[in-house]
């Protein structure tokens, strides 16, 4: 029976809470996303638990729907970056030679420009829509995943069992999916948590700059942008997303940490 440490339990609990909130946003949210239900910046009350925003929409509902958008975009971009980054990384490690050189130097080049700057450059000519945002974020982040999965896979390709599979005459795809992938999975899953958080921060930053998710769709970065004027008058509406992002980031980190330590201890001996 596996024991889950307390920190990881807390992390799992809050991560699950956020994801459930995102999936069932339509049922949980007390009001509609763009429904104007009161005056601007009403204080916290029984009818509006977190008060209202700059134009009188219920802030709790905006936060729930915003979480849905933020988490959906971040998750989609993470899936894209992992699928692309790890397949190319494994391919580079298995094939070696010019394929490896070409991919690795290409990744070096993309990483030589900060990803926020690259994203801004590309978004200056592309229409800012959800699929484009996911694509841009996923592609830029795939470079980081590529580096990690290539490094992990290079260590695995020199193992005896990979050699044995090669001598058996297995095809390259078989080696990638049946020999390397199962052995590289745990560090990749831990990394996936960190990349997901990075994506949440990335999309929030873009939305805050006005170049991410466009109104009337809500998202956490956008909520800050819409309510930032209130801060000068002492209205903390813009700070609520800070709390949401920070707790989500910390809980996912706790889970990722646990996955990583659990798998490093596995190396000593399974079932121990």
């Amino acid at each position, binding site marked *: 029976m596996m024991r889950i440490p307390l920190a990881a339990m807390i992390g799992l609990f809050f991560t699950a809470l956020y994801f459930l909130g995102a999936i069932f946003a339509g049922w949980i949210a007390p009001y509609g996303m763009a429904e104007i239900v009161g005056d601007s910046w009403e204080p916290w009350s029984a009818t509006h638990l977190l008060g209202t925003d700059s134009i009188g929409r219920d802030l709790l509902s905006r936060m729930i729907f915003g979480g849905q958008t933020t988490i959906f975009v971040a998750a989609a971009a993470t899936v894209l970056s992992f699928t692309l980054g790890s397949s190319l990384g494994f391919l580079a490690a298995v094939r070696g030679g010019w394929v490896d050189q070409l991919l690795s130097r290409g990744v070096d*080049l993309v990483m*030589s*420009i*900060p990803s926020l700057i*690259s994203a801004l450059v590309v978004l*200056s000519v592309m229409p800012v829509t959800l699929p484009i945002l996911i694509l841009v974020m996923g592609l830029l982040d795939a470079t980081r995943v590529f580096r990690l999965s290539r490094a992990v896979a290079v260590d695995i390709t020199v193992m005896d069992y990979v050699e044995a599979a090669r001598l058996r005459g297995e095809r390259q795809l078989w080696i990638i999916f049946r020999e390397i992938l199962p052995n590289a999975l745990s560090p990749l899953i831990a990394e996936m948590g960190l990349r997901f958080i990075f994506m949440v921060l990335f999309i929030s930053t873009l939305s*805050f700059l006005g170049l991410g998710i466009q109104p009337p769709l809500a998202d956490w970065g956008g909520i800050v942008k819409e309510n930032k004027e209130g801060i000068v008058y002492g209205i903390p509406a813009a700070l609520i997303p800070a709390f949401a992002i920070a707790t989500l980031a910390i809980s996912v*980190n706790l889970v990722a940490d646990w996955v990583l330590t659990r798998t490093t201890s596995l190396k000593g001996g399974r079932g121990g």
Partner: protein
Amino acid sequence: MVHPVIKLVAQRLALGLLLLLAASVLIFVGTQILPGDVAQSILGQSATPESLANLRAELGLNDPPVTRYFNWLLAAMQGDLGTALTNGQDIAQAMGKRLGNTLFLAATAAVIAVPLAILLGLIAVRYQGRWPDKVISTVTLATVSVPEFLLGYILVYLLSVKLRLFPSLATIYDTMSLGEKLYAISMPTLVLVLVVLGHMMRMTRAAILNVMQSAYVETAELKGLRPFTIIARHAFPNAIAPVVNVVMLNLAYLVVGVVVVEVVFVYPGMGQYLVDHVSKRDVPVVQACGLVFAAVYIGLNILADVISILANPRLRHPK
């Protein structure tokens, strides 16, 4: 025979130039040869064919892409970054002062953050696993878990609105004295310091802890030296190369953090210039800003490489 260090440094510099050249290609490709047409996406779907043709001619879109790239690159190397589409101003001129402002902000933050991060890293290692280490680690974990712009607003809420200590907007003019300027940028500086401090301190701590496992540190311990002397005299000099790398990586990170922080505090720097013109779809300005940011970023990374080469005594004094 050329000293091996000079050869290595020269190689690094050449590699940096090559990388910058390749990055310029990437920035150019990113804005020009995307599906569709730049002129179309600037003017939108409702544009008339005449205005599209005019804009295409103005942007030189009728030339082949390779010609356009070399025209752009050659002009940029002579300091001519073109003119902005939105107001027809010379980009290099508009950028000059803003670049100065941005570097002023980033440098102030770096001057505070670097020594502080290294000191905190040393303290965390000295009291590893005990409360000073835990307090430092928890606080820095909290600051790196929140994006820059939110950290900015939290600090504005606490320090500017509730306590009225610092100005919530960082407006600076030429006529201000240095002291006034420093006071004006106190909030953005604080945010930048907190953001990089977390990363830098954690990486410094890891780098020194790594060195602490070496045999000579154990020897020093067995000699009976005080823990802080061991760290400062034996561990730290050997951790310089990784620590310098950490510092440089974070300074490069600072360059990006500046973009967001400038928008939060309405600071007249490069970041705000870039973001403004991305939403206006002013391609020449975005390209120029992208190039400058990439140059600074690559430059700092190369500098980190060079310093860690120079910090390695085995390379400095070859057999």
